[in-house]
């Protein structure tokens, strides 16, 4: 595990896995946004079927889980090392004078996202891959091919206001985590220069807002019956 002994190499891993997970978010949000075609979930289910059956995508899913685990394990190592680096706390500290709350709360936000992920994977991933969908009928025929009706499953899950609130909290945590994480990844990889730092910051802000709002709009739109 020589790859994890240096503080800077741990940072590179954090940045690289973070950017990799960001690339996954783009695909995930993009495909989920197909529900807004409002065609009874036909386009969305076709894409869901492709993602669930394509061999390349299935292989990449393993990489995704590995990347996620690496991001979590690395983050935990950094967190505990950082706590150890200050054994005695200040009697009076004013961190808000020099930094933002979300930049100091990445471990907390990450933990909230992880709790959300467990719920989210139980709601959808577990059902599509292992236990089968709970919605009846669980399959729908599109162009003569049977597809899992993931769209109907989403509609079912998001009839529950508690689920909607949990998903909104997940999106909220994700927003702040991305808001610091996006620009932070570039800094960790050594990409900070006055020439383009503001562009990275702007891209990070826009990305965090677009991804979080897009994800949050899905349970809301389904709960309110805008998408059916």
């Amino acid at each position, binding site marked *: 595990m020589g790859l994890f*002994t*240096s*503080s*800077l*190499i*741990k*940072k*590179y891993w954090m940045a690289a896995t973070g950017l990799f997970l960001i690339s996954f978010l783009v695909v995930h949000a993009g495909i989920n946004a197909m529900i807004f075609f409002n065609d009874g979930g036909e386009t969305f289910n076709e894409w869901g079927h492709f993602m669930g059956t394509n061999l390349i995508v299935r292989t990449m899913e393993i990489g995704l889980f590995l990347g996620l685990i690496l991001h979590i394990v690395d983050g935990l190592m*950094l967190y505990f*090392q*950082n706590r*150890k*680096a*200050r*054994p*005695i*706390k*200040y*009697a*009076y*500290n*004013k*961190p808000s*004078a*020099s*930094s*933002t709350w979300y*930049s*100091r709360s*990445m471990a907390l936000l990450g933990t909230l996202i992880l709790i959300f992920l467990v719920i989210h994977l139980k709601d959808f991933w577990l059902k599509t891959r292992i236990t089968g969908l709970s919605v009846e009928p669980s399959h729908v025929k599109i162009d003569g091919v049977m597809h899992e009706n993931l769209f109907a499953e989403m509609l079912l899950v998001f009839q529950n206001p508690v689920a909607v609130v949990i998903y909104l909290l997940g999106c909220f945590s994700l927003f702040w985590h991305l808001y*610091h994480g996006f*620009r*932070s990844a570039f*800094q*960790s*990889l*050594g*990409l*900070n*220069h*006055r020439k383009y*730092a503001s562009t990275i910051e702007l891209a990070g802000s826009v990305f965090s807002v677009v991804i979080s709002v897009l994800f949050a709009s899905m349970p809301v739109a389904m709960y309110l019956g805008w998408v059916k």
Partner: protein
Amino acid sequence: MSNGNMNLTLKVWRQSNSTAAGKMETYQLGGVSPDMSFLEMIDMLNEQIIRKGEDAIAFDHDCREGICGMCSMFINGEAHGPNRGVTTCQLHMRSFKDGDTIYIEPWRAEGFPVVKDLMVDRAAFDRIIQSGGFVSVNTSGRTMDANAIPIPKDDADKAFDAATCIGCGACVATCPNSSAMLFVSAKVSQFALLPQGHPERKERVLNMVKQMDAEGFGNCSNIGACEVQCPKSISIENIARMNREYLSASVKPEN
């Protein structure tokens, strides 16, 4: 020095030696002039303490001109107090109000053990410098005139900005992770930007980061508090440069 009229409540960390348990003690101090520097105010408090026959508060200070990097107090939750771009010795009591309560604590970090009261041992920084924060110069009598080497103005300016680091440790003190990366990156940058630093460029960054980790400092999480509290306003662009230097040196260790 004119007598002033400020009355202050001071909460100061008292610890008799490196192994003893310490605690915050409360002192009342009157007649403080707004024109005093923060350290002069502590001197005044110490006179009061000594007159009572008690042990004076130990604190680091040397030049009192803001350039030596010895003073090191964590004042009201901020390294070197509430003002920006200054050390504690350049902080004046006019930055406080009559009747204020002021908390004064030593730097808190595993890498900076408390020696006594407000004094911490910053030898960890010396050991980091010894591990590579230097340029080996031939002093056999044929030393080249520095001005004979062409250096782009922009590089010279950036190197100078990094070289203004006085090694006070405020970056470590203010970082929630007690990370020393602003300090180390300033030293790495100062040499990496100049041709004189290039022969030892790769082993320098590898060795300095290794020593930084061995001293028990935390990891950077790009919070940016260090550059705000740094009395020399050193930018975290230097940390990015150190990250590049280290990445390049790790991928290809030889020059």
